[in-house]
């Protein structure tokens, strides 16, 4: 069997050409009429608030989501190989994974109960 990733590379190349080509084409075709207002931030037409430095900040709540996400992402990372090898790992795998899920559930329950999953 040939390496299945080679077609993927070809696909990637084609997709990249497409994506870059589209941008390049529009850059060539499109008009160039510079305007100070045009390149200013859009804030519903009012004068943009001056933003300091590079960019605004992600709110803290976002990090909370990210952290919780990571925990479950890890779970998924382990679940996939196990699911694929479910038959082979047999009872041992099943019990181990149930334990694992239970252990992941504990902090989930904790977070829920303690208001970590309240969004507002």
């Amino acid at each position: 069997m040939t390496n299945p990733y080679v077609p993927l590379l070809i696909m990637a190349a084609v997709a990249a050409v497409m994506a870059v080509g589209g941008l390049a084409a529009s850059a060539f075709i499109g008009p160039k009429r510079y305007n100070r207002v045009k390149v200013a931030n859009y804030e519903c037409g009012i004068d943009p608030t001056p933003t300091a430095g590079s960019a605004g900040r992600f709110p803290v709540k976002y990090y909370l989501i990210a952290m919780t996400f990571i925990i479950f992402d890890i779970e998924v990372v382990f679940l996939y190989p196990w699911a694929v090898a479910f038959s082979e790992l047999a009872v041992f795998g099943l019990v181990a994974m149930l334990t694992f899920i239970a252990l992941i559930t504990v902090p989930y329950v904790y977070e829920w109960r303690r208001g970590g999953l309240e969004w507002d």
Partner: protein
Amino acid sequence: MSLVHYLVLSGIIFSIGATTVLIRRNAIIALLGVELMLNASNLTLVTFARLHGDLTGQVIAFFVMIVAAAEVVVGLAIIVSIYRTRRSASVDDASLLKS
């Protein structure tokens, strides 16, 4: 492309990560440096797993990912809390402990 290349690559990435931790003062960047180091380790592990025809390396890579994730969670929590206090994530700004 021989396996050595992968090792060299991972060595380079590891060094970049380590350098980042050592010279960048922003805690989050430093954390990223650590992540880079971990990823270099993962690359090494997977390469060797391939070399030895032994999945152990890949399994360890899984665990390293877990470790990385756990570290990110804990580290991010710590850094966010300190950031909220000081409005800065710089390691140097947090220097009350310098003697």
